[in-house]
């Protein structure tokens, strides 16, 4: 017993628990308000006003939705596999919530002489962890879709599964380019390396593009929302779900968006770093003293992180309300014939650039060369006169 208590106090377990709870709460809060934001953003993009009757500016809309869903009849179709039907949304929610555990939301707080990092858990294979959790995310959708015993749901589930597996590959390869540059699997390390405006986006523009596209696909957002597209599959995998189980599914999508925005921010936009942060921190330390100054600087860093995340979420919505969606085979083509070769090319270019010693110049030169090669190849292809599309 004594060893347990000792371990508990020594390992800052309580502080960690607190931070985990706070991060959870923030994740859930942001996800809840993402549903509101989605409706507002959609409305504003479409020249409408959006929800504005539930509370001021519709701010209570998420609460209204949740309240309604909790007290809606919970319906399990007679033909459905009962346990799996319940397990589906739970898994979805669970995996969605897990993924933000390794994301460093800020630097550290110095409390009582101890340095507490604003991160649920620091593991040296953080990226792999994220990747693993993301790859599990599809289970919720698949199991739920299958268990509903509805053809539309099943089609949705199958689409989700194949889509997620395909895009994971390209995603993984685009991350590997980042890992090659940073030489570590720890998210915190990667963020620290981007200190001072040295963001990875400048080194990995193509990697960023691929990663973003894959993030859209993994979150099942337009243009990759095939598993649930309304006009084809009614509701896709969640056609048969009602009440809070549906709520979980919808909610998980927003949590996933939050998590992938956070990971994107960490990998490509320097996480909690912002230009001139050293200057701000020294000023604050000189003004407020070492501890308080550092803590305030960390808070500002957290603010910068959340700005990036919120912009990421906005971008998700912005794109959703702009573009049409792919067809299943086109989606597969894009994934396998477009993104994976590009990701491999990106890997080669990155490797070459690292070997050459001139990272930045090398990567951009390599990308330029690639574009030139592709255009030359394109212009050399056999051409028909008065060619029409698709003929």
């Amino acid at each position, binding site marked *: *017993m*004594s*060893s*347990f208590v000792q*371990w508990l106090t020594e390992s800052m377990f309580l502080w960690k628990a607190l931070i985990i709870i706070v991060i959870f709460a923030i994740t859930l809060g942001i996800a809840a308000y993402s549903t509101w934001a989605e409706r507002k953003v959609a409305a504003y993009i479409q020249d409408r006003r959006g929800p504005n009757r539930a509370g001021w500016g519709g701010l209570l809309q998420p609460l209204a939705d949740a309240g309604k869903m909790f007290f809606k009849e919970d319906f399990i179709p007679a033909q459905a*596999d009962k346990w*799996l039907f319940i*397990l589906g949304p739970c898994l979805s929610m669970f995996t969605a919530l897990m993924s933000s555990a390794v994301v460093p939301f800020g630097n550290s707080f110095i409390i009582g002489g101890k340095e507490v990092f604003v991160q649920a858990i620091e*593991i*040296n*294979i953080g990226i*792999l*962890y994220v*990747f*693993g959790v*993301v*790859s*599990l995310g*599809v*289970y919720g959708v*698949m*199991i739920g879709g*299958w*268990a509903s015993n509805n053809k539309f749901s*099943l089609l949705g*589930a*199958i689409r989700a*599964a*194949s889509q*997620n*597996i395909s895009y*994971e590959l390209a995603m993984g390869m685009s991350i590997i380019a980042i890992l090659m540059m940073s030489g570590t*699997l720890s998210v915190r390390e990667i963020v620290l390396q981007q200190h001072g405006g040295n963001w990875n986006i400048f080194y990995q523009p193509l990697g960023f593009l691929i990663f973003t596209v894959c993030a859209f696909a993994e979150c099942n957002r337009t243009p990759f929302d095939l598993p649930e597209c309304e006009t084809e599959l009614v509701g896709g995998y969640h056609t048969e779900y009602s009440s809070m189980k549906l709520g979980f599914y919808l909610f998980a999508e927003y949590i996933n968006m939050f998590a992938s925005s956070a990971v994107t921010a960490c990998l490509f936009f320097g996480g909690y770093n912002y230009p001139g942060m050293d200057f701000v921190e020294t000023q604050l330390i000189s003004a407020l003293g070492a501890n308080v100054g550092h803590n305030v600087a960390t808070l500002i860093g957290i603010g910068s992180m959340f700005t990036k995340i919120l912009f990421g979420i906005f971008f998700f919505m912005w794109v959703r309300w702009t573009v049409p969606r792919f067809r*299943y*085979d086109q989606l*597969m083509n894009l994934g396998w014939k477009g993104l994976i070769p590009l990701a491999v090319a990106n890997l080669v270019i990155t490797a070459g650039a690292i070997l050459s010693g001139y990272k930045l110049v090398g990567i951009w030169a390599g990308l330029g060369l690639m574009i030139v090669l592709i255009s030359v190849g394109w212009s050399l292809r056999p051409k028909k006169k008065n060619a029409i599309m698709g003929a």
Partner: protein
Amino acid sequence: MQNILSLPPIWYTFAILSVLTLFGALGTIMSKNPVHSVIYLIVTFFSISAHYILLNAQFLAAVNIIVYAGAIMVLFLFVIMFLNMKQESDEMKNNKLITTAVITALLLGGILIIFLRRAEKQKVDVTSFSSQTGMVEVLGKSLYGEYLLPFELVSVLFLVAMAGAVMLAKREAGERHF
């Protein structure tokens, strides 16, 4: 029994995980619904990954989840979903099949026991033990140094397997692929 309480927390973790692993493994072979089997198997993979973490092999743990739970089992599930699970198949209740399965299992078990008996129990030497064993860097170095040839051979094998799978899956020309 009293000193159970004084065991370090890691022991509790180990015990719980072991029970979970066995539970998952048993569930996999006992459950009638193949989808349930797959889910039990995923539980097993998870607890094995957790064992890896206990052994400080975080990389293996993550890869185990990504590859097995995240990809292979998804494909399993994918295939199972395509099959129509409505009609009960009696194939599994065939006597011949059961006898073959039992014999195979016994043989495998025997081999395992023999090897286990031969295996030496290594004591961990605290002074020379490197905490980095099982970490990515060490793993990578040994894979690409010591075991380069087998590693590359395995990759060639995978490539061949992949090409074969593609050939098998390919339909006749002119058909659209979805």
